[in-house]
């Protein structure tokens, strides 16, 4: 993507004032995005993201520069600017690259840019029709499609030269149900590190009917009662709870600064003993998967918590150096506009022993959170919040009336200890995770779990 000579000269110019490491990331990405409102194409956009980011380390500190003018003149100018942020003696130079053989574990069957836009439009329309036809209460739909083909080159002063291609495709449907005074929505957004074959793997019409059902159920729901109660969180997107409440606190970004409740607790019990949690960037065609991370380290399967004991953090190169620990293949970034840092890939709580039926019937009274919305967390304190998109009360061990407007709040460290049942129905769901290195695709996941007590916020 960039001539070897320019890469070499840029890295060497960057190392001139004593940096101990220099790395260049070049990206050429083609994106296409089509969205439909009420069965009509409302937006269609496509384009090229292109640029290079240069990062150097000086001890444990980093300098990052980026540009989309990759002419040799400008690249050398950027390298000089970066090196001027450091004052030291000339460091080691690099003059030989070892081309990495990248083992591609995510085969792409149909490149999405070879499919006509009309074909995509037909799929989106069919999704919208399915939602509308499901019930007369469905008054609006939004369906959308996105693909992204990212070509990357990573070269560094240790001699790494790695090139890879990442292809991601995603579909989304939102159905809105209305009564005279209310509107409620249901939404699903499946996707993967794959091409157009996504549509062979999912049933767009079935998913759209599910979104419609969820919206209608919530339209008839009463306001959720508030207070402390047992909460059963369903599988799939329910895993967002672990992602927010715990995953972010295990990222070296906050651990290295001692700004996480999980810092310094390796080997200690941080969750109840039925909890095992994993971050796996190698899942075949997984939405958050990639062959190599954005520093060129091969992706790994990292066991974060084993039977309640903290086993691993998520660590990037710079923080590995600071923490004196190994990289975990977890360094990610949205694009060349961001310096990479430790992030999640596909993160989930592993399956346990209970069946979903056992979990519900063991709960006298509580909240059943069937569909979770998004949330956020303050990693320093672990305080989190999540929205419940589709919720029900549990009464006498049975799922009772639907409730809406519920929010779950708590502290990650408390909740992990209070997980008292883990189901056997692990499922993953796709999301976009925003943090300091931008917005990146990640999977969340879990089987159905029960938290013995949680604060539920609602208006009922």
């Amino acid at each position, binding site marked *: 993507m960039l001539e070897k000579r320019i890469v070499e000269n840029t890295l060497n110019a960057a190392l001139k004032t004593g940096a101990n490491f220099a790395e260049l990331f070049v990206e050429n990405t083609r994106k296409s995005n089509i969205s439909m409102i009420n069965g009509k194409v409302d937006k269609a956009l496509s384009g090229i993201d292109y640029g290079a980011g240069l990062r150097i380390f000086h001890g444990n*500190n980093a300098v990052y520069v980026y540009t989309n003018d990759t002419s040799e003149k400008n690249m050398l100018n950027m390298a000089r600017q970066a090196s001027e942020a450091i004052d030291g003696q000339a460091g080691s130079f690099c003059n030989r690259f070892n081309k990495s053989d990248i083992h591609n574990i995510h085969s792409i069957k149909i490149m999405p840019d070879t499919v006509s836009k009309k074909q995509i439009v037909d799929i989106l329309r069919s999704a919208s029709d399915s939602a509308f036809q499901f019930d007369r209460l469905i008054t609006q739909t939004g369906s959308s499609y996105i693909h992204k083909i990212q070509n990357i080159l990573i070269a560094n002063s240790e001699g790494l030269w790695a090139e890879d291609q990442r292809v991601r495709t995603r579909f989304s449907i939102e159905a809105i149900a*209305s009564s005279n005074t209310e509107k409620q*929505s249901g939404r699903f957004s499946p996707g993967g590190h794959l091409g157009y074959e996504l549509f062979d793997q999912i049933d767009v019409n079935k998913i759209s009917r599910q979104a419609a059902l969820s919206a209608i159920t919530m339209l008839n729901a009463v306001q959720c009662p508030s207070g402390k109660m047992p909460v059963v969180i369903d599988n799939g997107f329910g895993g967002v709870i672990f992602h927010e409440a715990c995953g972010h606190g295990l990222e070296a970004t906050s651990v290295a600064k001692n700004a996480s409740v999980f810092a310094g607790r390796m080997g200690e019990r941080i969750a109840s003993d039925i909890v095992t949690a994993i971050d796996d960037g190698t899942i075949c065609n997984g939405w958050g998967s990639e062959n190599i991370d954005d520093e060129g380290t091969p992706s790994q399967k990292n066991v974060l918590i084993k039977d309640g004991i903290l086993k691993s953090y998520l660590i990037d190169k710079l923080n590995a150096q600071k923490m004196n620990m190994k990289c975990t293949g977890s360094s990610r970034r949205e694009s060349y506009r961001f310096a990479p840092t430790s992030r999640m890939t596909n993160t989930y709580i592993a399956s346990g022993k209970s069946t979903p039926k056992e979990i519900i019937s063991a709960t006298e009274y509580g909240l059943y959170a069937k569909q979770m919305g998004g949330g*956020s967390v303050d990693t320093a304190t672990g305080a*989190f919040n999540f929205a419940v998109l589709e919720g029900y009360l549990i009464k006498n061990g049975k799922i009772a009336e639907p409730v809406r407007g519920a929010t779950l709040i708590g502290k990650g460290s408390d909740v992990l200890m209070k997980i008292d049942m883990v189901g056997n129905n692990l499922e993953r769901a796709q999301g976009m995770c925003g943090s300091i290195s931008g917005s990146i695709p990640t999977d969340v996941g879990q089987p159905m779990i029960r938290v013995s007590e949680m604060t539920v*916020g609602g208006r009922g």
Partner: protein
Amino acid sequence: METNRFQLELMKLASEEGFEDSEIYYAGGKSFEALIFEGEIAHYENSISSGVSFRGIFEGKMGYSYSEQIEMECIPFLVKEAKENAQIMENDEKEPLFEGEKSYSQIEGYHEALCNVTVLDQINAAKQMELSAKEYAEEIKTVNYCLTAYQEGEIAITNTKGLSVRFRDNYQTAYISAIAQMDDDIKTGSEFFAGTKFESFLPKKIGKAAAEKAVMYLGAKSIQSSIYSIVLSNLSAASLLSTFSVIFFGDNVQKGFSLLSNKLDSQIGSNILTIRDDGLLKDGMASIPFDSEGVGTQNKAVVENGILKTFLYNLKSAVKENKSSTGNGFKTSFQSSVQTACTNFYIQKGSKSLDDLFEKMGEGLYITELSGLHAGTNTVSGDFSLLAEGFWIEDGKIKYPIEQITVAGNFYTLLEQIYDIGNDLRFQLPGGSGVFGSPALLIEKMAVSGL
């Protein structure tokens, strides 16, 4: 790459390929940021970037494409994609290109003095900010973010209808977050600066303010679930306003995503409530003489004394109702199509100080932080249920800090329940589209869940 030649070639090919009219939107800029950790520059970042967005009318429909690579070789891709995108468009709404205003308001966007601030001055300021937070109290364990940043940008729009506009601006921001700890209790406090004059950036004051907040939250407890009177702090009110600002967008009303349709010229809020969208606000962080379609921006009341005066329109949504654009057609970046967005969008200040509001409330909650706005809100129904932090107020005075509660309500109802308005109007950090501001608001009652 010569931008002029690129533009000419692009428009030429577009015309040859059958585009009736076309437009090129260029955005470029520079940025600098430094992150200080324990007195050292932990992260230092510089950037120079630019991109073009192309759009044109093909067979009566608008097609978009963009590229960050401004090279001749990308021109065929831009034209081909824009054409294909136009061909699949199905909404019958006309999206016109604009020929330009006769004249535009003058706005001082670019501040020479700010551009001349040295990197060393920037870094020293950030180091002072970190130090003053750390020295504030022994409970301050660490400063987890201490950032100083400078940004400048340029936008130029040219089209075949004769529009040709250009605007440059620059600004400075700084942000700090401090962590306080007492035994097992950990709290964070943050503060920021955003402005166009480096002299107004007072690092010691900001550092101290962040630390002070973190320490004040120590020892916080939850409270009994109930209905309470509430004072929303200026920034927490601004964040709610930001999330729900979309209900005032003309296109959302047309698509049925807002419950304000048919409410024009009727009372939708308390009669002391005035909300303005002012694209020309002096020193406003979102001030700009024209929007992304080249339409001049305005200073207008969206809600005045509780009466809904106007929605926010771009050219497309305005045409639909036979109205004029209000100058709110913006692209969030050159990668996006024209949407509706706010400029400087704020609740006009009242006369009461924060203490006056506490006194008027007597007993209740002072909410200073709201989290999870992207998740715990439903912009269609107006419902929200959000994690909150703040203080318990008794006899008009702050008694103790509160945590682990949620406040729940409905934005439409909240507008009606604004009982009084403070005089402490403050804007949020700029970012994304629009900048939002509010003074503190006294709200009659809100559902709070805690213990």
